[in-house]
Protein backbone atom coordinates (compact mmCIF):
# COMPACT_ATOMS: atom_id res chain seq x y z
CA UNK A 1 0.00 0.00 0.00
CA UNK A 2 1.51 3.31 -1.11
CA UNK A 3 1.02 6.06 1.47
CA UNK A 4 2.17 9.62 2.11
CA UNK A 5 2.42 11.18 5.54
CA UNK A 6 0.26 14.30 5.52
CA UNK A 7 -0.04 15.14 9.20
CA UNK A 8 1.43 14.44 12.56
CA UNK A 9 -1.64 14.72 14.76
CA UNK A 10 -1.59 14.91 18.51
CA UNK A 11 -2.01 11.20 18.80
CA UNK A 12 -1.51 9.62 15.43
CA UNK A 13 0.33 9.84 12.14
CA UNK A 14 -2.06 10.55 9.28
CA UNK A 15 -1.31 9.16 5.82
CA UNK A 16 -3.06 9.71 2.52
CA UNK A 17 -3.49 6.49 0.58
CA UNK A 18 -5.85 4.60 -1.74
CA UNK A 19 -8.55 2.03 -1.12
CA UNK A 20 -10.47 0.55 -4.05
CA UNK A 21 -9.47 3.50 -6.21
CA UNK A 22 -10.78 6.00 -3.69
CA UNK A 23 -8.62 8.36 -1.67
CA UNK A 24 -8.35 7.06 1.87
CA UNK A 25 -6.82 8.03 5.21
CA UNK A 26 -4.58 5.64 7.10
CA UNK A 27 -4.49 6.71 10.75
CA UNK A 28 -1.76 5.00 12.72
CA UNK A 29 -1.20 5.36 16.42
CA UNK A 30 2.56 4.90 16.70
CA UNK A 31 4.14 3.97 20.02
CA UNK A 32 5.04 7.00 22.07
CA UNK A 33 8.56 6.49 23.31
CA UNK A 34 7.98 8.72 26.34
CA UNK A 35 5.10 6.63 27.61
CA UNK A 36 5.53 3.52 29.68
CA UNK A 37 5.22 0.59 27.28
CA UNK A 38 2.39 -1.21 29.06
CA UNK A 39 0.38 1.98 29.42
CA UNK A 40 1.14 2.94 25.83
CA UNK A 41 -0.06 -0.30 24.28
CA UNK A 42 -3.20 -0.28 26.39
CA UNK A 43 -4.11 3.27 25.39
CA UNK A 44 -3.42 2.82 21.69
CA UNK A 45 -5.38 -0.40 21.44
CA UNK A 46 -8.31 0.88 23.45
CA UNK A 47 -8.57 4.10 21.49
CA UNK A 48 -8.29 2.42 18.11
CA UNK A 49 -11.16 0.08 18.93
CA UNK A 50 -13.23 2.91 20.40
CA UNK A 51 -12.63 5.17 17.48
CA UNK A 52 -13.57 2.65 14.80
CA UNK A 53 -16.64 1.46 16.67
CA UNK A 54 -18.12 4.82 17.54
CA UNK A 55 -17.21 6.43 14.20
CA UNK A 56 -19.35 3.73 12.64
CA UNK A 57 -22.17 4.08 15.19
CA UNK A 58 -22.68 7.84 14.94
CA UNK A 59 -23.46 7.58 11.25
CA UNK A 60 -26.62 5.71 12.24
CA UNK A 61 -27.68 8.84 14.18
CA UNK A 62 -27.36 11.01 11.09
CA UNK A 63 -23.94 12.44 11.90
CA UNK A 64 -21.44 12.74 9.06
CA UNK A 65 -18.23 10.85 9.82
CA UNK A 66 -15.72 8.97 7.66
CA UNK A 67 -16.59 5.42 6.61
CA UNK A 68 -14.42 2.83 8.33
CA UNK A 69 -12.78 0.50 5.81
CA UNK A 70 -10.42 -1.53 7.92
CA UNK A 71 -9.24 -1.76 11.53
CA UNK A 72 -6.00 -3.38 12.66
CA UNK A 73 -5.90 -3.62 16.45
CA UNK A 74 -2.39 -5.12 16.41
CA UNK A 75 -0.92 -2.27 14.41
CA UNK A 76 -3.38 0.11 16.09
CA UNK A 77 -4.36 1.59 12.76
CA UNK A 78 -7.58 2.51 11.00
CA UNK A 79 -8.17 2.83 7.29
CA UNK A 80 -11.01 5.24 6.61
CA UNK A 81 -12.69 7.39 4.01
CA UNK A 82 -10.83 10.54 3.04
CA UNK A 83 -12.89 13.67 3.62
CA UNK A 84 -12.05 16.42 1.19
CA UNK A 85 -12.49 19.87 2.70
CA UNK A 86 -11.21 22.43 5.22
CA UNK A 87 -10.72 22.13 8.92
CA UNK A 88 -13.26 24.28 10.75
CA UNK A 89 -10.29 25.54 12.74
CA UNK A 90 -8.85 27.26 9.66
CA UNK A 91 -12.04 29.03 8.58
CA UNK A 92 -12.19 32.83 8.66
CA UNK A 93 -13.87 34.20 11.78
CA UNK A 94 -17.12 35.29 10.17
CA UNK A 95 -17.69 31.81 8.73
CA UNK A 96 -16.69 30.05 11.91
CA UNK A 97 -19.19 32.05 13.99
CA UNK A 98 -22.05 30.95 11.77
CA UNK A 99 -20.97 27.34 11.68
CA UNK A 100 -20.92 27.12 15.47
CA UNK A 101 -24.69 26.78 15.38
CA UNK A 102 -24.54 23.74 13.11
CA UNK A 103 -21.76 22.30 15.25
CA UNK A 104 -24.06 22.73 18.25
CA UNK A 105 -26.71 20.75 16.41
CA UNK A 106 -24.29 17.96 15.54
CA UNK A 107 -23.09 17.70 19.13
CA UNK A 108 -26.69 17.77 20.33
CA UNK A 109 -27.59 14.91 18.03
CA UNK A 110 -24.59 12.91 19.17
CA UNK A 111 -25.33 13.46 22.86
CA UNK A 112 -29.00 12.67 22.35
CA UNK A 113 -27.90 9.35 20.92
CA UNK A 114 -25.78 8.62 23.98
CA UNK A 115 -22.27 9.39 22.74
CA UNK A 116 -19.71 11.88 24.01
CA UNK A 117 -16.83 12.82 21.71
CA UNK A 118 -14.14 13.60 24.24
CA UNK A 119 -12.06 15.84 21.99
CA UNK A 120 -14.39 18.52 20.63
CA UNK A 121 -11.91 20.91 19.12
CA UNK A 122 -12.24 22.83 15.87
CA UNK A 123 -9.51 20.66 14.32
CA UNK A 124 -11.82 17.67 14.52
CA UNK A 125 -14.51 19.07 12.22
CA UNK A 126 -14.03 19.10 8.45
CA UNK A 127 -16.32 21.20 6.28
CA UNK A 128 -17.06 19.93 2.79
CA UNK A 129 -19.21 22.31 0.77
CA UNK A 130 -22.01 22.74 3.31
CA UNK A 131 -21.70 19.41 5.08
CA UNK A 132 -19.78 19.21 8.35
CA UNK A 133 -17.97 15.96 9.14
CA UNK A 134 -16.89 14.96 12.63
CA UNK A 135 -13.65 12.98 12.98
CA UNK A 136 -11.19 11.71 15.63
CA UNK A 137 -13.27 9.56 17.99
CA UNK A 138 -10.35 8.11 19.98
CA UNK A 139 -11.51 9.65 23.26
CA UNK A 140 -15.22 9.12 22.69
CA UNK A 141 -17.45 6.97 24.81
CA UNK A 142 -21.01 5.78 25.14
CA UNK A 143 -22.58 7.77 27.93
CA UNK A 144 -25.74 9.72 28.70
CA UNK A 145 -24.41 11.35 31.87
CA UNK A 146 -24.88 15.09 32.16
CA UNK A 147 -21.34 15.38 33.57
CA UNK A 148 -19.81 13.72 30.53
CA UNK A 149 -21.76 15.77 28.03
CA UNK A 150 -20.76 18.89 29.97
CA UNK A 151 -17.09 17.97 29.51
CA UNK A 152 -17.63 18.07 25.73
CA UNK A 153 -19.25 21.50 25.90
CA UNK A 154 -16.63 22.91 28.22
CA UNK A 155 -13.82 21.81 25.94
CA UNK A 156 -15.44 23.41 22.92
CA UNK A 157 -15.83 26.63 24.91
CA UNK A 158 -12.20 26.48 26.05
CA UNK A 159 -11.04 26.08 22.44
CA UNK A 160 -13.16 29.00 21.26
CA UNK A 161 -11.75 31.13 24.05
CA UNK A 162 -8.09 30.29 23.52
CA UNK A 163 -7.86 29.73 19.76
CA UNK A 164 -10.71 31.82 18.38
CA UNK A 165 -10.74 34.57 20.99
CA UNK A 166 -12.21 37.30 18.80
CA UNK A 167 -15.43 35.39 18.10
CA UNK A 168 -15.68 33.50 21.39
CA UNK A 169 -18.85 35.12 22.76
CA UNK A 170 -20.96 34.96 19.61
CA UNK A 171 -19.63 31.54 18.64
CA UNK A 172 -20.52 30.09 22.02
CA UNK A 173 -23.99 31.65 21.96
CA UNK A 174 -24.60 30.17 18.51
CA UNK A 175 -23.30 26.78 19.58
CA UNK A 176 -25.68 26.70 22.55
CA UNK A 177 -28.58 27.73 20.36
CA UNK A 178 -27.92 24.88 17.94
CA UNK A 179 -27.41 22.45 20.82
CA UNK A 180 -30.65 23.52 22.48
CA UNK A 181 -32.61 23.09 19.26
CA UNK A 182 -31.80 19.37 19.35
CA UNK A 183 -31.66 18.35 23.01
CA UNK A 184 -34.37 20.74 24.27
CA UNK A 185 -34.24 23.63 26.73
CA UNK A 186 -34.37 21.55 29.89
CA UNK A 187 -31.49 19.25 28.97
CA UNK A 188 -29.42 22.13 27.58
CA UNK A 189 -29.83 24.01 30.87
CA UNK A 190 -28.82 20.96 32.89
CA UNK A 191 -25.68 20.35 30.86
CA UNK A 192 -24.89 24.05 30.75
CA UNK A 193 -25.08 24.48 34.52
CA UNK A 194 -22.75 21.52 34.90
CA UNK A 195 -20.27 23.29 32.64
CA UNK A 196 -20.21 26.12 35.18
CA UNK A 197 -19.65 23.66 38.00
CA UNK A 198 -16.60 22.16 36.24
CA UNK A 199 -15.25 25.64 35.54
CA UNK A 200 -15.56 26.68 39.18
CA UNK A 201 -13.79 23.53 40.28
CA UNK A 202 -10.61 24.17 38.34
CA UNK A 203 -10.92 27.89 38.74
CA UNK A 204 -11.09 28.17 42.47
CA UNK A 205 -9.03 25.16 43.40
CA UNK A 206 -7.54 26.03 46.76
CA UNK A 207 -3.87 26.67 46.38
CA UNK A 208 -1.98 24.34 48.66
Amino acid at each position, binding site marked *: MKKTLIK*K*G*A*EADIYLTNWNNEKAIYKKREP*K*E*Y*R*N*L*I*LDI*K*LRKHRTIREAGIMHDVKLFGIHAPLVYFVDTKKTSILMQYIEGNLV*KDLPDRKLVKICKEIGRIVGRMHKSGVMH*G*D*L*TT*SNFIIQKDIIFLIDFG*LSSRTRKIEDHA*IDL*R*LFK*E*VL*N*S*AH*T*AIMEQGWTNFLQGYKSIVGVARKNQVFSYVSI*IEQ*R*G*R*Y*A*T*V*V
Partner: protein
Amino acid sequence: MLGLGIESTAHTFSCAVIEKKGTRSKILSDVRSIYQPPDGQGIHPREASRHHVKNAAIVLSECLQKAKVKVNDLDIISYAAGPGLGPCLRVGAVVARSLAFYYNIPIYPVNHAVGHIELGKMLTGAKKPLLLLVSGGHTMLLVFSLGKWRVFGETLDITIGQLLDQFGRFAGFASPCGKRIEELASKSCNYIALPYVVNGNDVSFSGLLSAAKLEISKGLEDVCFSLQETAFAMIGEATERALAFTREKELLVVGGVASNKRLAEILTSVCKRQDCKFFVCPGYYAGDCGSQISLTGLLESSVKNGVKIEDTFVKQSWRVDSVEIAY
Protein backbone atom coordinates in the same frame (compact mmCIF):
# COMPACT_ATOMS: atom_id res chain seq x y z
CA MET B 1 15.30 50.69 37.44
CA LEU B 2 15.44 48.82 40.71
CA GLY B 3 12.49 46.71 41.81
CA LEU B 4 11.88 44.78 45.00
CA GLY B 5 9.54 41.78 44.72
CA ILE B 6 7.83 40.05 47.63
CA GLU B 7 6.42 36.55 47.28
CA SER B 8 4.29 34.94 50.00
CA THR B 9 1.45 33.06 48.29
CA ALA B 10 1.99 29.67 49.96
CA HIS B 11 4.91 28.00 51.76
CA THR B 12 7.63 30.37 50.54
CA PHE B 13 8.41 33.83 51.83
CA SER B 14 10.89 35.43 49.46
CA CYS B 15 12.28 38.85 48.57
CA ALA B 16 14.30 39.68 45.48
CA VAL B 17 15.81 42.73 43.86
CA ILE B 18 16.01 43.00 40.08
CA GLU B 19 17.68 45.73 38.08
CA LYS B 20 16.05 46.46 34.73
CA LYS B 21 17.82 48.45 32.03
CA GLY B 22 15.70 48.75 28.90
CA THR B 23 14.77 45.21 27.93
CA ARG B 24 17.52 43.64 30.03
CA SER B 25 16.95 42.49 33.56
CA LYS B 26 19.37 41.16 36.12
CA ILE B 27 18.59 39.43 39.38
CA LEU B 28 20.72 41.10 42.08
CA SER B 29 19.45 38.94 44.92
CA ASP B 30 16.77 36.37 45.68
CA VAL B 31 16.42 35.24 49.28
CA ARG B 32 13.88 32.72 50.58
CA SER B 33 12.61 31.11 53.71
CA ILE B 34 10.37 28.09 53.28
CA TYR B 35 7.77 26.95 55.78
CA GLN B 36 8.17 23.28 56.60
CA PRO B 37 5.09 21.52 58.00
CA PRO B 38 5.59 18.41 60.17
CA ASP B 39 6.12 15.16 58.15
CA GLY B 40 2.94 13.68 56.74
CA GLN B 41 1.06 16.96 57.17
CA GLY B 42 -0.07 19.56 54.69
CA ILE B 43 0.53 23.26 54.73
CA HIS B 44 -1.63 24.97 57.32
CA PRO B 45 -2.36 28.53 56.13
CA ARG B 46 -2.20 30.13 59.55
CA GLU B 47 0.97 28.29 60.56
CA ALA B 48 2.59 29.22 57.26
CA SER B 49 1.64 32.86 57.70
CA ARG B 50 3.17 32.84 61.20
CA HIS B 51 6.36 31.52 59.68
CA HIS B 52 6.27 34.35 57.11
CA VAL B 53 5.71 37.01 59.79
CA LYS B 54 8.61 35.67 61.82
CA ASN B 55 11.02 35.56 58.88
CA ALA B 56 9.95 38.57 56.81
CA ALA B 57 12.39 41.07 58.32
CA ILE B 58 15.36 38.70 58.11
CA VAL B 59 14.66 37.74 54.49
CA LEU B 60 14.10 41.37 53.48
CA SER B 61 17.27 42.74 55.03
CA GLU B 62 19.38 39.88 53.70
CA CYS B 63 17.93 40.45 50.24
CA LEU B 64 18.78 44.17 50.28
CA GLN B 65 22.23 43.48 51.68
CA LYS B 66 23.04 40.91 49.00
CA ALA B 67 21.83 43.24 46.27
CA LYS B 68 23.83 46.07 47.87
CA VAL B 69 20.89 48.45 47.77
CA LYS B 70 19.02 50.49 50.36
CA VAL B 71 15.24 50.77 50.50
CA ASN B 72 15.62 54.38 49.39
CA ASP B 73 17.26 53.25 46.13
CA LEU B 74 14.23 51.19 45.09
CA ASP B 75 12.11 52.57 42.25
CA ILE B 76 9.18 50.24 42.77
CA ILE B 77 7.91 47.56 45.14
CA SER B 78 5.82 44.61 43.92
CA TYR B 79 4.04 41.94 45.91
CA ALA B 80 2.19 38.76 44.96
CA ALA B 81 -1.48 39.64 45.41
CA GLY B 82 -2.80 36.21 44.43
CA PRO B 83 -3.71 33.50 43.80
CA GLY B 84 -2.73 31.92 47.09
CA LEU B 85 -3.61 31.37 50.72
CA GLY B 86 -5.27 34.39 52.34
CA PRO B 87 -3.24 34.59 55.56
CA CYS B 88 0.03 34.11 53.65
CA LEU B 89 -0.83 36.65 50.95
CA ARG B 90 -1.62 39.24 53.59
CA VAL B 91 1.88 39.03 55.13
CA GLY B 92 3.57 39.94 51.85
CA ALA B 93 1.03 42.67 51.18
CA VAL B 94 1.55 44.23 54.61
CA VAL B 95 5.33 44.28 54.22
CA ALA B 96 5.03 45.82 50.75
CA ARG B 97 2.51 48.43 51.87
CA SER B 98 4.54 49.49 54.88
CA LEU B 99 7.69 50.00 52.83
CA ALA B 100 5.86 51.73 49.98
CA PHE B 101 4.02 54.04 52.36
CA TYR B 102 6.92 54.91 54.63
CA TYR B 103 9.43 55.47 51.85
CA ASN B 104 6.90 56.76 49.33
CA ILE B 105 7.73 54.21 46.63
CA PRO B 106 5.23 53.16 43.90
CA ILE B 107 3.61 49.80 44.66
CA TYR B 108 2.41 47.08 42.23
CA PRO B 109 0.16 44.09 43.01
CA VAL B 110 1.32 41.20 40.81
CA ASN B 111 -0.34 37.95 39.75
CA HIS B 112 1.78 35.05 40.98
CA ALA B 113 1.17 32.87 37.91
CA VAL B 114 2.05 35.68 35.52
CA GLY B 115 5.22 36.00 37.60
CA HIS B 116 6.18 32.39 36.90
CA ILE B 117 5.62 33.00 33.19
CA GLU B 118 7.59 36.24 32.91
CA LEU B 119 10.56 34.96 34.88
CA GLY B 120 10.61 31.76 32.81
CA LYS B 121 10.61 33.77 29.59
CA MET B 122 13.37 36.06 30.79
CA LEU B 123 15.66 33.26 31.98
CA THR B 124 15.20 30.97 28.96
CA GLY B 125 14.84 33.53 26.19
CA ALA B 126 11.63 31.91 24.89
CA LYS B 127 9.82 34.43 22.68
CA LYS B 128 6.29 33.28 21.98
CA PRO B 129 5.87 29.97 23.76
CA LEU B 130 3.01 27.67 24.54
CA LEU B 131 3.15 27.67 28.30
CA LEU B 132 2.91 24.76 30.69
CA LEU B 133 2.49 25.84 34.30
CA VAL B 134 2.92 22.95 36.73
CA SER B 135 2.96 23.69 40.43
CA GLY B 136 1.07 23.26 43.68
CA GLY B 137 -1.51 25.81 42.64
CA HIS B 138 -1.71 25.25 38.90
CA THR B 139 -1.73 22.69 36.14
CA MET B 140 -2.42 24.67 32.99
CA LEU B 141 -1.56 25.02 29.34
CA LEU B 142 -1.68 28.65 28.28
CA VAL B 143 -1.48 30.50 24.98
CA PHE B 144 -1.16 34.25 24.62
CA SER B 145 -3.91 35.83 22.54
CA LEU B 146 -5.38 39.35 22.38
CA GLY B 147 -3.70 40.72 25.48
CA LYS B 148 -4.26 37.83 27.85
CA TRP B 149 -2.94 34.38 28.61
CA ARG B 150 -5.77 32.04 27.61
CA VAL B 151 -6.28 28.59 29.06
CA PHE B 152 -5.93 25.95 26.37
CA GLY B 153 -6.10 23.06 28.81
CA GLU B 154 -6.05 22.52 32.54
CA THR B 155 -6.80 20.09 35.33
CA LEU B 156 -10.48 19.44 35.93
CA ASP B 157 -9.88 18.75 39.62
CA ILE B 158 -6.62 18.74 41.63
CA THR B 159 -3.27 20.07 40.40
CA ILE B 160 -0.16 17.98 39.72
CA GLY B 161 1.45 19.47 42.84
CA GLN B 162 -1.53 18.50 44.96
CA LEU B 163 -1.46 14.99 43.49
CA LEU B 164 2.20 14.51 44.42
CA ASP B 165 1.93 16.17 47.83
CA GLN B 166 -1.27 14.45 48.87
CA PHE B 167 0.08 11.08 47.85
CA GLY B 168 3.41 11.80 49.54
CA ARG B 169 1.82 12.91 52.78
CA PHE B 170 -0.34 9.78 52.78
CA ALA B 171 2.93 7.83 52.54
CA GLY B 172 4.31 9.88 55.44
CA PHE B 173 6.83 12.02 53.52
CA ALA B 174 7.73 15.59 54.42
CA SER B 175 6.10 18.29 52.25
CA PRO B 176 6.72 19.26 49.58
CA CYS B 177 6.96 15.63 48.46
CA GLY B 178 7.94 15.89 44.77
CA LYS B 179 11.69 15.33 45.26
CA ARG B 180 11.19 12.25 47.42
CA ILE B 181 8.71 10.71 44.99
CA GLU B 182 11.10 11.37 42.10
CA GLU B 183 13.93 9.68 44.00
CA LEU B 184 11.91 6.59 44.85
CA ALA B 185 10.43 6.39 41.35
CA SER B 186 13.91 6.32 39.81
CA LYS B 187 14.58 3.03 41.64
CA SER B 188 11.76 1.11 39.95
CA CYS B 189 10.59 0.26 36.47
CA ASN B 190 7.73 -1.97 37.47
CA TYR B 191 4.54 -0.40 36.19
CA ILE B 192 1.31 -0.89 38.13
CA ALA B 193 -1.76 0.07 36.07
CA LEU B 194 -3.35 3.31 37.33
CA PRO B 195 -6.22 5.41 35.95
CA TYR B 196 -5.15 7.60 33.03
CA VAL B 197 -7.65 10.38 32.31
CA VAL B 198 -7.23 12.83 29.43
CA ASN B 199 -10.31 14.71 28.24
CA GLY B 200 -9.35 16.53 25.07
CA ASN B 201 -6.89 19.17 26.29
CA ASP B 202 -7.72 18.66 29.94
CA VAL B 203 -6.58 16.20 32.56
CA SER B 204 -8.02 14.86 35.79
CA PHE B 205 -5.92 13.51 38.66
CA SER B 206 -8.35 12.73 41.47
CA GLY B 207 -9.03 9.13 40.36
CA LEU B 208 -5.29 8.56 39.99
CA LEU B 209 -4.67 9.81 43.53
CA SER B 210 -7.23 7.46 45.14
CA ALA B 211 -5.99 4.47 43.14
CA ALA B 212 -2.32 5.15 43.93
CA LYS B 213 -3.12 5.31 47.66
CA LEU B 214 -4.82 1.91 47.42
CA GLU B 215 -1.80 0.34 45.72
CA ILE B 216 0.73 1.54 48.27
CA SER B 217 1.07 -1.90 49.88
CA LYS B 218 2.47 -3.25 46.58
CA GLY B 219 5.71 -1.37 47.26
CA LEU B 220 6.42 2.30 47.59
CA GLU B 221 9.01 2.51 44.81
CA ASP B 222 6.74 0.80 42.29
CA VAL B 223 3.80 3.01 43.17
CA CYS B 224 5.88 6.21 43.02
CA PHE B 225 7.20 5.10 39.63
CA SER B 226 3.72 4.28 38.32
CA LEU B 227 2.25 7.48 39.71
CA GLN B 228 4.88 9.59 37.95
CA GLU B 229 4.67 7.64 34.70
CA THR B 230 0.89 7.98 34.56
CA ALA B 231 0.56 11.60 35.66
CA PHE B 232 3.44 12.89 33.52
CA ALA B 233 2.31 10.93 30.45
CA MET B 234 -1.09 12.61 30.85
CA ILE B 235 0.57 16.03 30.97
CA GLY B 236 2.75 15.01 28.01
CA GLU B 237 -0.29 14.04 25.97
CA ALA B 238 -2.23 17.20 26.83
CA THR B 239 0.84 19.24 25.86
CA GLU B 240 1.23 17.36 22.59
CA ARG B 241 -2.42 18.02 21.77
CA ALA B 242 -1.93 21.71 22.44
CA LEU B 243 1.21 21.82 20.26
CA ALA B 244 -0.43 19.95 17.40
CA PHE B 245 -3.41 22.30 17.51
CA THR B 246 -1.71 25.66 17.98
CA ARG B 247 1.39 24.78 15.93
CA GLU B 248 3.43 26.86 18.36
CA LYS B 249 7.15 26.40 17.85
CA GLU B 250 8.22 26.86 21.48
CA LEU B 251 7.22 25.19 24.72
CA LEU B 252 8.12 26.74 28.07
CA VAL B 253 7.62 24.88 31.36
CA VAL B 254 7.49 26.80 34.62
CA GLY B 255 6.39 26.17 38.21
CA GLY B 256 7.76 23.98 41.00
CA VAL B 257 7.19 20.65 39.22
CA ALA B 258 9.19 21.92 36.20
CA SER B 259 12.35 20.80 37.98
CA ASN B 260 11.32 17.12 37.79
CA LYS B 261 13.76 15.28 35.50
CA ARG B 262 11.33 12.66 34.29
CA LEU B 263 8.75 15.27 33.30
CA ALA B 264 11.42 17.18 31.38
CA GLU B 265 12.43 13.98 29.59
CA ILE B 266 8.83 13.30 28.53
CA LEU B 267 8.31 16.86 27.34
CA THR B 268 11.58 16.80 25.39
CA SER B 269 10.30 13.77 23.52
CA VAL B 270 6.92 15.44 22.90
CA CYS B 271 8.66 18.51 21.48
CA LYS B 272 10.83 16.40 19.22
CA ARG B 273 7.79 14.76 17.64
CA GLN B 274 6.01 18.10 17.26
CA ASP B 275 9.15 19.83 15.94
CA CYS B 276 9.21 22.42 18.67
CA LYS B 277 11.88 24.05 20.85
CA PHE B 278 11.84 23.07 24.49
CA PHE B 279 12.56 25.53 27.30
CA VAL B 280 12.44 24.79 30.98
CA CYS B 281 12.83 27.36 33.73
CA PRO B 282 16.12 26.71 35.59
CA GLY B 283 15.57 24.71 38.79
CA TYR B 284 16.35 27.39 41.34
CA TYR B 285 13.87 29.82 39.78
CA ALA B 286 11.16 27.35 38.73
CA GLY B 287 9.53 27.35 42.15
CA ASP B 288 8.04 30.27 44.07
CA CYS B 289 10.46 33.19 44.48
CA GLY B 290 10.65 36.96 44.81
CA SER B 291 12.28 37.34 41.39
CA GLN B 292 9.11 36.36 39.55
CA ILE B 293 7.20 39.10 41.36
CA SER B 294 9.90 41.74 41.06
CA LEU B 295 10.33 41.21 37.32
CA THR B 296 6.58 41.31 36.59
CA GLY B 297 6.20 44.53 38.59
CA LEU B 298 9.03 46.10 36.60
CA LEU B 299 7.40 45.07 33.32
CA GLU B 300 4.09 46.53 34.45
CA SER B 301 5.74 49.76 35.51
CA SER B 302 6.74 50.35 31.89
CA VAL B 303 3.07 50.85 30.98
CA LYS B 304 1.29 51.64 34.24
CA ASN B 305 1.64 53.72 37.38
CA GLY B 306 1.62 52.03 40.75
CA VAL B 307 -1.64 51.71 42.67
CA LYS B 308 -2.70 53.86 45.63
CA ILE B 309 -2.02 52.28 49.00
CA GLU B 310 -5.76 52.14 49.69
CA ASP B 311 -6.26 50.27 46.42
CA THR B 312 -3.75 47.52 47.14
CA PHE B 313 -5.46 44.16 47.51
CA VAL B 314 -5.05 40.44 47.89
CA LYS B 315 -7.21 37.99 45.94
CA GLN B 316 -7.03 34.32 46.87
CA SER B 317 -8.42 33.05 43.57
CA TRP B 318 -7.01 35.53 41.09
CA ARG B 319 -7.11 33.68 37.75
CA VAL B 320 -4.14 34.14 35.44
CA ASP B 321 -6.48 34.39 32.44
CA SER B 322 -8.19 37.46 33.88
CA VAL B 323 -5.01 39.55 33.90
CA GLU B 324 -4.65 42.14 31.12
CA ILE B 325 -1.07 42.20 29.84
CA ALA B 326 -0.32 45.60 28.33
CA TYR B 327 3.49 45.61 28.15
